[in-house]
């Protein structure tokens, strides 16, 4: 029994020393791990996606290799609705090695605005959740996460469609068809210019299409837009209340119908 006890003593002492030394050196070598970020760049891809590009430099001067390094970014709106996601894996960073990587997140504006229409009209803060994960010494998983607010400017902020007004000189022409104007205004708070067309359909209180109008626009970022849109309507079907259907088609996104009631 004494031999068995001695064997257990020696082997357990050896294993304890190894385990403590390994764990301590693995944690200690983490201080020689450096992660540096370059300047965040934004560009617009051929598919009209906004691409956030973040250059990263990873330096591992520790005692052990770092495996399964991954940086992921999620962009969410105020209601935690996922708008974009991107991840950049680096399988292995050897000891003494420097790795340069580029982290990309593609933000499909068209998809995001059609899913979360609040982003179209309201300035808000987007939540940018970043997570870095890796395996220190190839055995100890380490994860760091941070949340950053990203201000979002609405492309159609303060979007207003005024009441339909008949133009005086055109009234009664063309077998009941008259020309009128509807004032449309909004402020482009987005970080990109808006250019495209705006189509408006006028419905009466029994959902009968009574008139349409269309205009093109070109609104630089942080600019106001105001225009009286010419609308050709069938006067006999016009009622005092009803609704408009607005379609906005731009190079960045297409939305519609946006239903706006009038009275």
């Amino acid at each position, binding site marked *: 029994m004494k031999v068995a006890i001695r064997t257990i003593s020696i082997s357990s002492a050896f294993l*304890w020393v190894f385990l403590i030394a390994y764990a301590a050196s693995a944690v200690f070598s983490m201080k020689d791990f450096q992660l540096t970020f370059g300047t965040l760049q934004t560009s617009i891809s051929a598919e009209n996606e906004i691409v956030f590009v973040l250059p990263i430099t990873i330096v591992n001067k520790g005692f052990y290799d770092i495996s399964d390094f991954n940086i992921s970014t999620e962009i969410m709106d105020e209601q935690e609705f996922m708008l974009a996601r991107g991840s950049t894996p680096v399988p292995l960073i050897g000891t003494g090695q420097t790795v340069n990587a580029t982290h990309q997140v593609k933000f499909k504006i068209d998809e995001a605005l059609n899913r979360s229409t609040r982003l179209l009209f309201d300035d808000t803060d987007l939540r940018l959740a970043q997570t870095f994960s890796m395996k220190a010494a190839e055995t100890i998983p380490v*994860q760091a996460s941070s949340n950053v607010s990203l201000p979002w400017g609405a492309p159609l902020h303060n979007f207003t469609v005024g009441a339909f007004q008949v133009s005086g000189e055109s009234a009664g022409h063309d077998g009941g068809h008259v020309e009128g104007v509807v004032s449309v205004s909004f402020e482009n708070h987005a970080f990109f210019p808006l250019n495209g067309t705006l189509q408006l359909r006028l419905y009466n209180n029994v959902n009968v299409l009574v008139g349409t109008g269309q205009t093109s626009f070109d609104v630089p970022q942080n600019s106001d837009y105001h225009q009286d849109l010419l609308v050709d309507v069938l006067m006999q079907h016009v009622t005092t209340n009803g609704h408009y259907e607005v379609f906005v088609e731009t190079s960045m996104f297409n939305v519609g119908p946006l239903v706006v009631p009038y009275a």
Partner: protein
Amino acid sequence: MLEETKKDSQGGFRKILFRASKATIKGSIFYGVYFVLSQYMAPIFTVVPSFQQTIESFVIAYTVLLIAGELTGGTVYQHFLNVAKALFVVGYLMLSMKSGVIELTLSSITIAVDFRLILTAAVLLSLLGVAKAVLQAVDYMSSKAEPPIF
């Protein structure tokens, strides 16, 4: 008769002195190992002060059990204390590290380090310590029950 009693008490005193010296040496070595490792872990202690407190309280409790075990050497109490020491390590690892994932928050960044693999290895080694202490207790009791033939 009086001389024999005097010799016995002198021998007992020597034994206690020897045990006390052994306990002091073992305690000092254990503290020395902790001191050296704590120098390496100083950057972590500055970031997570609670981690240092946790380790310190462990070192204190373990050293007390270590010294008490050495002072009671050659008696059955030593084996009780050895089992208690081994069980303390298992319990301490399980309780202090909770799920084995340590989380700390630095301003807006949350860092989580998963020590589950290391913790599992440490708990298994501690169980080996419990087994060793139990075997030592069994050996001690059997040696008391059966006097050696030769």
